[in-house]
């Protein structure tokens, strides 16, 4: 116990004295959260739309009004003819051009279908997709309104789809990216501290040959490993609290589920991540190599393969298989369930179990390799 405390205290002293690791552990998470939270947004708002109105009737004006009434579209000028559309799209003056044909009003009155043309700048596929989606919904609204108006005038209803899907999004009704990203970001940041910082802190001892001095002492391997990892567990918990607070105040992401469950999921994840960090430190002998291995083995997967940004379900099967052995995948899923849905234990236990198994595997392997690497 005394030996553990000696390492524990020393580790904190060194972290406090090393501006680089302090920055890595404290400022980078905050910076990343703000960067990702604000910049990495899939929400599309303020799309500049130009319009060409060949109809110029009450109905067409109502449709355009409803287009610009919300925050999604901003008017980018009225064009005289469709020939100008090319120009405004090329120059980026508008992301899309809406063309209302002559006879729009008449067609609506007759109850026949009417086509409205939209030209969308497809250079940014995400935005283009979203724009098309918004316009779809808008057109649908316009149709329903027309239907209502006609009923009022007690005319025959226009041909409408009989069944309309009305999606209602739960847990994140506005489909805000930040809500979706904050849980993933927690996983990423904890991975950064846990794997990279831990492996570096052990390899640093090897590189500076202070490891040898510890190995000739009665220190036991588990005391060394615990003394080296527990400080990072604490730092990770502080990081986590900080990210949750920032997420709440900056992006309004509140934890709906139980904090106890959140803590349990975090500890299980850290168990796996630290095992991985110790494993990396056992198989590398310089900080540079350890850093590269840690980034490739942990940081990249936790950004790309964890479902943080890209849904796992959309990945090719072999890559989906790889994600099965990545702890961040389960952690991201558990975090989203706990934070956004307030999921109870019985909903997320498979994720927790997976992390426990992965953690046990990493730690056994790490213990074996460390023992072999240090106490030969």
């Amino acid at each position, binding site marked *: 116990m005394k*030996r553990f405390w000696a390492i524990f205290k020393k580790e904190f002293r060194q972290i406090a004295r090393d501006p680089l690791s302090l920055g890595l552990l404290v400022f980078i998470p905050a910076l990343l959260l703000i960067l990702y939270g604000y910049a990495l947004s899939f929400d599309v708002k303020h799309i500049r739309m130009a319009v060409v109105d060949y109809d110029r009737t009450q109905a067409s004006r109502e449709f355009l009004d409803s287009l610009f009434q919300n925050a999604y579209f901003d008017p980018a000028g009225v064009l005289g003819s469709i020939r100008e559309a090319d120009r405004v799209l090329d120059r980026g003056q508008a992301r899309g051009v809406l063309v209302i044909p002559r006879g729009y009003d008449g067609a609506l009155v007759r109850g026949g279908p009417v086509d409205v043309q939209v030209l969308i700048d497809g250079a940014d596929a995400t935005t283009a997709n979203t724009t098309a989606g918004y316009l779809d919904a808008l057109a649908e609204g316009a149709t329903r309104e027309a239907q209502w108006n006609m009923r009022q005038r007690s005319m025959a209803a226009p041909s409408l789809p009989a069944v309309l899907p009305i999606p209602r999004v739960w847990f994140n009704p506005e489909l805000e990216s930040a809500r979706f990203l904050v849980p993933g970001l927690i996983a990423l940041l904890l991975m950064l501290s846990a794997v990279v910082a831990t492996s570096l802190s052990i390899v640093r001892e090897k590189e500076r040959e202070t490891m040898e001095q510890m190995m000739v002492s009665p220190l036991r391997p588990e005391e060394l490993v615990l003394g080296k990892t527990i400080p990072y567990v604490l730092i990770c918990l502080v990081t986590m609290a900080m990210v949750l607070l920032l997420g709440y105040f900056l992006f309004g992401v509140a934890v709906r589920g139980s904090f106890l469950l959140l803590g349990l999921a975090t500890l299980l994840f850290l168990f796996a991540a630290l095992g991985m960090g110790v494993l990396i430190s056992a198989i590398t002998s310089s900080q540079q190599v350890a850093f590269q291995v840690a980034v490739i083995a942990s940081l990249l997967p936790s950004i790309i393969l964890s479902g943080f940004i890209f849904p796992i379900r959309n990945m090719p099967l072999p890559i989906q298989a790889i994600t099965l052995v990545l702890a961040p995948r389960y952690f991201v899923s558990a975090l989203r369930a706990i934070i956004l849905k307030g999921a109870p234990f019985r909903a997320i236990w498979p994720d927790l179990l997976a992390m426990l198994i992965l953690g046990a595997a990493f730690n056994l392997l790490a213990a074996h390799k460390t023992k072999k690497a240090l106490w030969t």
Partner: protein
Amino acid sequence: MFLNVGLLNNKRTITLNRNGTEPVIVVDGLTKVFGRFTAVDHLHFSVPRGEIFGFLGPNGAGKSTTIRMLCGLLSSTEGTATVGGYDINRDPERVRQNIGYMSQKFSLYKDLTVSENIAFFGGVYGLARTRLRERAAAVVRLAGLTGLEKRLAGTLSGAHQQRLALGCAILHEPPILFLDEPTSGVDPISRRLFWDLIQDMASRGVTVLVTTHFMDEAEFCGRIGFISGGRLVALDTPSALKRDAVREELYEVSLADMQGSRERVESVPGVVATSYFGRNLHVFCRPGTFTAESLQQALVRDGMGVQSVESVSVSLEDAFIRLAAPAGKAAA
């Protein structure tokens, strides 16, 4: 009888009689093979309590490998050793409690202060708080670091770092001390101070096993083991080594032109080997072949400009140079 010491006294330290004959380190056929390379080849020796045992030999001879095996940093391929009565392979944890180890790298935390380093190593050795306070004060005094306790270890001079490293290695007052080239990179006065500390500890019963390249340091050792190619080629007191290691007669020759003359001297019948000694040449000759005068005549006959030839006594350095290459004619 001493092989049973560990069993008889199942405690941290062993009670020993004062006569210094009871071996504290017993090395028995210790061997280390790295792949195809045999770094340490069946070493046998023992070190009694309170002795300073010097380990000498060229780079790569296996000195550090041996020390690392005795400290439990490396496992042995074959053979074994007991340190403080405990077997290094079967009981490495007990061994570690009884030893202090310091290497040429002065393994300190350069980003921690002097006191923080001491506190850390004290903690690693599990010292109780009051004992740590006592020992920390003693170590600071011993290392001459009074007033520098708050300095970062990395900003200390080499000599201070060396003494702090020694201090950290002996915080737990180990009865056995392993020093692997402890004085490399330290000025002569500081080296002398360091050896005063070592001799003082040895006089109080600490057993010291030290490797060095410095001949003056070898003279401080009670006995010297000379290791070459992983084998122990000589083991004796410094004076006996000087007397016995070199069977040839030694002459110091001063030549007018040293350029290329070493090979010419060695080609003279009766000359076994030569080595540079300052601006002169040390010439090892088969016993009874030459006197100083007849050697000078032989060299002059060969056309060399000889300034002086003097019969000299063998120094430790001469002995080691001959021991490092006993088969060859010339030695570096």
